[in-house]
């Protein structure tokens, strides 16, 4: 195939990603790649457009960094979250709340030298290691909340919008009940009342407990605090789905009126097929943008909840919780507030930049201008050739 674009490294990477994805899907569905050439071409153009938007690229970079640290953070961290250096040194009173850059010799730990690039907390733990391990907590929670809360909302919204009538009335009344509360307030109340029941459940289901501990990269010793952690997750799922139900219902209602849906009904396609194969793909674009933006929202809310003392308890590494504990020593130990908060902001900013960029790409109005930019560089490429 003749290539007519002037390509950056990122464009070439985009090609590889799209073709790789196509081949990957073709492994399961024979001939998918050949059948969906135009779709893949569109994806490629979207990625090219993304490559030409610096803010979106910065967002993508931050998000990828967050995901990587979320997965590998606990391994990258030099010290485990439950390693308490103050137990291994004579100068334990100095090692706690040590400022950034200080060094200590752990005389009861083979005289190992411990450095605190970002300072230490009130247990003398290394803040940098805590932040790296804490990425896992944030990452797992946001993934679970989004991957359970959003589909639940979309499903209910689709059903309400498609069937209408009493089903719609019932679902939307329930949705409205939840939307009558400011989200964080409801999350606070739920996080407060849920833990005990969840803890009882966890303690009696060892497999679940093991799985959750593995997810959060925690030691068995923390099993007793999982209830609080999971309560925050459940609380956030409960406050997160109603917004999606409402958005999905709205777009389903407008989509349902279109002729092709009427045609699909007329030829007697089952409701399930119409909803998931015809309506959903056509309304998913804006919802994807919301999801991207909401990752930032979930991370902010989780940090807020743990800043209020809900959810993660020490020694579990959690960004909001570090600030909650560190705030007592503010402003003396400012680093305990400053760095974790900064990290939360950067991660949320990353998701928001990416979401904003995606919105520009998916919005036909701005998309046109981006496509022209792509074509312009294509022309320049021709001129160079």
């Amino acid at each position, binding site marked *: 195939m003749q290539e007519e674009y002037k390509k950056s490294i990122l464009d070439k990477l985009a090609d590889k990603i799209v073709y790789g994805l196509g081949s990957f899907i073709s492994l399961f569905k024979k001939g998918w790649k050949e059948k969906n050439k135009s779709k893949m071409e569109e994806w490629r153009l979207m990625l090219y457009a993304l490559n030409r938007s610096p803010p979106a690229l910065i967002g993508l970079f931050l998000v990828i960094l967050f995901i990587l640290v979320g997965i590998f953070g606990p391994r990258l961290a030099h010290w485990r979250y439950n390693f308490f250096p103050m137990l291994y040194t004579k100068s334990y009173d100095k090692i706690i709340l040590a400022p950034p850059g200080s060094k200590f010799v752990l005389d009861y730990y083979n005289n190992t030298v411990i450095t605190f690039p970002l300072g230490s907390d009130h247990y003398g733990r290394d803040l940098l290691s805590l932040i790296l391990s804490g990425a896992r907590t944030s990452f797992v929670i946001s993934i679970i909340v989004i991957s359970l809360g959003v589909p639940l909302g979309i499903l209910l919204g689709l059903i309400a919008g498609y069937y209408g009538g009493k089903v719609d009335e019932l679902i939307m009344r329930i949705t409205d009940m939840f939307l009558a509360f400011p*989200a964080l*307030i409801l999350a606070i109340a739920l996080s407060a009342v849920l833990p005990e029941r969840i803890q009882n459940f966890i303690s009696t289901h060892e497999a679940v407990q093991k799985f959750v501990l593995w997810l959060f990269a925690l030691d068995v010793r923390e099993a007793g605090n999982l209830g609080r952690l999971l309560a925050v997750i459940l609380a956030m799922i409960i406050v997160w789905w109603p917004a999606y139900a409402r958005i999905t219902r709205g777009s389903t209602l407008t989509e349902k009126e279109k002729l092709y849906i009427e045609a699909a009904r007329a030829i007697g396609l089952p409701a399930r097929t119409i909803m998931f194969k015809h309506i959903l793909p056509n309304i998913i674009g804006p919802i994807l943008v919301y999801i991207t933006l909401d990752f930032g929202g979930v991370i902010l809310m989780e940090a807020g909840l743990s800043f209020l*003392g809900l959810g993660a308890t020490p020694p579990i590494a959690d960004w909001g919780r570090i600030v909650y504990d560190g705030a007592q020593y503010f*402003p003396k130990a400012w680093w305990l507030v400053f760095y974790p908060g900064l990290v939360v902001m950067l991660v949320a900013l990353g998701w928001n930049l990416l979401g904003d960029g995606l919105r520009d790409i998916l919005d036909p109005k701005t998309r046109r201008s981006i496509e022209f930019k792509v074509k312009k560089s294509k022309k320049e490429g021709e001129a160079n050739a």
Partner: protein
Amino acid sequence: MADLKKFLIRRILTFIPTIVGVTIIVFLIAYVIPADPAKAWAGGEKASPEAVERIKERYHLNEPWYDQYWFLIKGLATNTLIDPRTSNPVFDDIKDRFPVTFQLAIIAFTFTILIGIPLGLISALKRNTWIDTLVRIFALIGVSTPVFWLGYLLLFVFFVKFRITNLAGVPPAPPVQITHIPIIDSLLTGNFTLFKQHLARFWLPGFVLGFMGTGVLARFVRNSFLEALSGDYIQFLKAKGVPKLRMYRHALKNALVPIVTVLGLQFGGLLAGTPITETVFALPGMGRYAILSIQNLDFPAVVAITFIYAIIYVTANLVVDILYAVIDPRVRY
């Protein structure tokens, strides 16, 4: 105007099921979800069996669910729900804390509106210039900044470094109370020293709380204003020979319709942010009280506060809907 009245009645009628919905959720939180509410209310693990039994008796926990639900509604409506920890009716404990939270939200809201709307209009009129880009960045940073982080950052600057604000206590309410919101009352009664004291204590937390929404509002105002300006009727107004300023007035009124909706949502966001702001700035408000109550396993207080937050929020939404109808004749019928 007649249809406006009809709209009002209809809208206020739909307010009732919303309140019922709120009580149902509050009921679920208070009586259904906790594994053992009585034990929690009596103080958790350390509670004696007799105390737990007494609590069960007092809060009808041995009765069927509908009895419990009725007990809760009656308790909330008549303020007869007794806090097991303080032995006061719950709303008595909240009474002094409510004005702090409400005042904080009002001041934050004022900041949001006073900065957000003009910024959005400037951004729209100077579209695609550096101001516009700056507002876009500001909006993105606004939604990405944790409230507590910004709070401590500004505390460091204004309290630790420059001592421009203080953190101790809250100034008293003026002797004559009209709205029961101290800062408004002191202004209404002409008590400017007290007004200044309140402002000195509240401006920083108010700004921090309002910060998040300001950029978003500005962006939204910009987009709605541009959308309104691109309307055909604006072209027609121009063809009519209407001066520029009057054209902007038409566009602004049209843009206000979506803006008012967003303002309602933002007020909800502000309310939700009050517990964090109050914690950072040591303000003895409702949100802070809720957090302390959670630490003390004092659930009736948590339930009552959650209920009040919801009531404020749905009332704000009611006001938004009414404003909406006042501005836009199309929604009245």
